[in-house]
Each structure stands twice: as C-alpha cells, then as structure tokens.
C-alpha cells in the first residue's frame, strides 16, 4: 500500500533562501507524526507543501498515489475532495480567522465545498459545542483571546472531519489549560485513525501527539524514528537546537546536560 504522502527530493526556497533541501519522506495513513525542529528549520514550509499551498521547486509530492501539483489543484474534481480530506491549521490564528463572526468562520470551509444547507448548519453547531465555543458563535474572531482564537481555528477545519490534520504549532502561545484541551483533542483523533502531522518545537507535547518524529534541521531530515528513539537521543536534540545545555552546580561541582521537559515525566 503506497504511503498517503510521498515526497521525493523536495526542495523549496523563499526568493533564493533555501527552506527545504532535497527532502524525501513517506507518511502512511493513520500515522501520528511530529515534525520537530527549531525555528526556521522548514516545518511550516513542509506543512504547506503537504497542503498543496506551495508547489515544490524541485522533486515530487504525491498524495494518495497522485501527484500533488498546482495544475491538479486547479481541477475541482481533485481539489474539492483534497480540501475535504486534508486540513491545515495555521500557526497564527489571526490569518486563518477572517470572517465577521465565529459561526461564519466555522461555516467558511463547508460553504466553499458546497455542503447542503441543513448538513452545514447542523455540523457547524455540533463543532462549536464539541470545541466548547458555542457561547462565542456571534462574536467577531478578532476580539477573542489567544486560546479562544486557536480553538476557533481548530474548529474551522475540524468541521470538515478531515482524514488528515496538519497542525502548525498547535499549542504555541496557549495557556496550560488551553494546551491541555488541544492535546486531549489530538489524542481523541488517535482512536479515529486520522493522520495527524504536527509541526512543533515543544518537546513536552511530542509524546502526547505523535508516535513518530521527523527531526528537521536547516531544511533537511536530521532523523526519523519513533518517539522513544528520538527523545532518547539527547545529542541529536541538542544539535538540532531542541534542548539547551543546562548548567548548574551540586556541592560546588558544575554540571552541564540537556534539559528536557515531558508531560509524562520531567527529567533532567
């Protein structure tokens, strides 16, 4: 069975500045993958390539066995099911929330995809309740708090019940309670066989949201393995700028070692 996403030698640059350099990877259906990397490592770019928003400058990207190209995405027969199946939550909710009310925001994608009116209204209302934002339905999104915006942004794609969720730093800038709610939600998807690809640099959430980690370093894959393998490799994490050397002293003796936090355990 071919992988759901298959990338071969993918390169991408922003006006001459390389963001991805010859990246090859396959992601199977139902996998929970974390794209781990420091700022500027190419995580967000990779998510946008997977969502068909950026075309690869070199190399090939295939989705479900078919090439993911701008030409194909201009064809409604391919684009509509693709947009229905694959959803991206942007890092900055402000760019994703552009409708007059929260209700309109959540209804935006189903409307674009031509859902029937009754199904649309029922699903939007259900999603608002599921995300605990029913009370915000008539509020303009730009007036919400950071946590509320993030939940609305998530609701705006969850409403489609997509098979693939691409999450760009889903818990960054959230308070602990909101972080926990988002993580709970991602964990619920595990039981629903959804493919969840989470870009993050927060090691403390990785175990909760992924079973496989792809470490990106300057647009290249530095490592690819299970959560346990990658998180256990402190040298790799240190080199990829995902942990910092923590210096302190015990009885006058100075120690230096990586500093890792985890929801499951808090270790030094």
């Amino acid at each position: 069975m071919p992988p759901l996403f298959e990338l071969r030698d993918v390169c991408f640059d922003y006006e001459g500045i390389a963001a991805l350099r010859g990246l090859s990877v396959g992601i199977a259906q139902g996998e929970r993958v974390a794209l781990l990397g420091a700022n500027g490592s190419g995580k967000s770019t990779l998510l946008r390539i997977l969502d068909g928003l950026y075309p690869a400058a070199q190399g090939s990207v295939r989705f479900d066995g078919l090439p993911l190209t701008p030409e194909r995405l201009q064809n409604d027969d391919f684009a509509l099911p693709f947009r229905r199946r694959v959803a991206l939550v942007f890092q900055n909710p402000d760019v994703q929330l552009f409708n007059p009310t929260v209700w309109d925001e959540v209804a935006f994608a189903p409307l674009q995809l031509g859902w029937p009116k009754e199904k649309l209204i029922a699903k939007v209302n259900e999603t608002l309740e599921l995300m605990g934002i029913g009370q915000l339905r008539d509020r303009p999104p730009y007036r919400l708090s950071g946590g509320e915006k993030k939940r609305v942004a998530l609701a705006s794609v969850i409403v489609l019940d997509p098979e693939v969720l691409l999450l760009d730093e889903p818990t960054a800038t959230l308070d602990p309670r909101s972080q926990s709610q988002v993580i709970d939600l991602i964990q619920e998807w595990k039981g629903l066989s959804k493919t969840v690809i989470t870009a993050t640099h927060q090691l403390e959430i990785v175990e909760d949201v992924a079973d496989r980690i792809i470490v990106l370093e300057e647009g290249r894959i530095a490592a690819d393995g299970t959560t346990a393998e990658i998180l256990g490799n402190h040298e790799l994490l240190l080199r990829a700028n995902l942990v910092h050397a923590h210096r302190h002293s015990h009885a006058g003796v100075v120690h230096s070692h990586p500093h890792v936090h985890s929801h499951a355990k808090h270790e030094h």
Partner: protein
Amino acid sequence: MSRGFLESTTMAFARAITRAMLSERTARQRGLLQSLDPRVRVVGLFSLVLAVTLCRRIDAVAGLFALAVVLALLSQVGLAILAKRVWWVVLAFTGIIALPAIFITPGDVVTRLGTVFITAQGLRAAGLLVLRVETAVTFTALLVFCTPWSHVLKALRALRLPREAIAMLAMTYRYVFLLVETAAQMFESRRSRTVGVLAPAERRRMAARTAGVLLSKTIETSSEVYLAMQSRGFAGDIQVLCDFRMTMWDYAGLLLFLAVGSFAVWAGR
C-alpha cells in the same frame, strides 16, 4: 510622546474598521432593505446614487435625501449612527471643498463679510454639492449597513463583476483588519521605545520607515490570508449560506427603486 497625524489617523481608521465589523450586526437585523434580495439592494441603491449625481436641482436632491432617511428608519439604521459615521464626516470634508464656492460664484449678493460677498448662486452651488455627496454616501452606507459583506460580494458577482475583482474585494476586507491592527501595534511599539518629543523631521523619517515596513508586512500578510482561504477551499467565488432567490416583493422593490431614481432625474433636470 504626543500622537502624530499619521498615528492618529491610523488609530481612527482602526476604530472605523471595528465599527464596520459591528455593522454586520445591523445587516442581520430585520428591516425593509434587509428583506430585499441583496442584488436588488445593490442595483437599487446604486441607481439612486446615480440619480443623485444626475440631479441638478437642490429640491430633487433634498427629496432623495429624505428618502434615504426614511429607508434608514425602516431598516433599523439609527439616525444617530448615520449622523456620526456619515453626515458629520461628509460635511467636514465636502464643506471644506464647497466653502470657496460661496464667495467666488458670481451672482446676486445676499450679504457681505468685509471685502467679500456671499451670493445666492454661491450658496446654492455649495449647498447642492454638500447635499449631493451627503445623499450619495448615505445610500452607499445604507447598502453596507444593511447587507453582510459576503452578500454584497456575491451580489456583485451575480451582476457579472469579474471574478478577479471580487477576489480582490474579498481579500481587502479580510485582511484590512489585520493590517490596521498591525499598524496600531507598530505605533504602540514605537511609542513605548521613544522618550521625549521627536523633531518634526525625525518624526517624518520614522513615519516613512514605518510605512515601508508596513508595506512589506502587508504583502506578507495578504499572501498568508489568501493561503488560509485557499486551504479551506476558496477558489475565487464567494459562497454564502442563503441562496439568492427573487420573489415578487424583490421585483416590486427593484421597480420602485428604478422608478424613483428615474423620476428624481426627470424632476431634477
């Protein structure tokens, strides 16, 4: 540090944008204009704007202004809101342009202020200009107050406005809020790092630099918003929940708009 002209203008614009957002609420209330098909609202109100510009008699324009007031009242748009957001603003801007006409238009002298004369023809010309603009802007404001923006766009598309133009309007509306917020934050950030009063030349230089950075951010933000729209299936056409369907009431409304507009043009010729 006191706020400069640019900063005050940006802040005022931010407030105006916020109010524009709130006008979506008025658009969803029940009222005469809201009960009409959005296409009828667009065509009808623009035909009245056209009639206003073609009228040469002040009494005909005054009649159209009275009609605008009646339409506002029947559409739950408060006159206080209109006065604050439209009439005073238009009066301030157009008044400045119209004022010289009172003194420079030759004709029958009404009164004399020192060495200058105020003529009846000058008063009429200035009054006609101000009233025309007030009336035209009031009709346009009524369209915005009584129609959700997405419906305006869909109506314009139904009226064969090119898809590219609609996409541009949609984009503008969607990211203008972000842009204004970014601009406001940039000014606040600058103020928080500025001590004392800057010299006017330095203030101008800083404003120019800020404008340059803002332009770059604008381009970046607009492409981000567009990507976010694309990601959720936007392909250039605006989709709204309600289907536009013309009823007898809509046809009657359209005919009435066109009849009133035509009559006003004939009466004001």
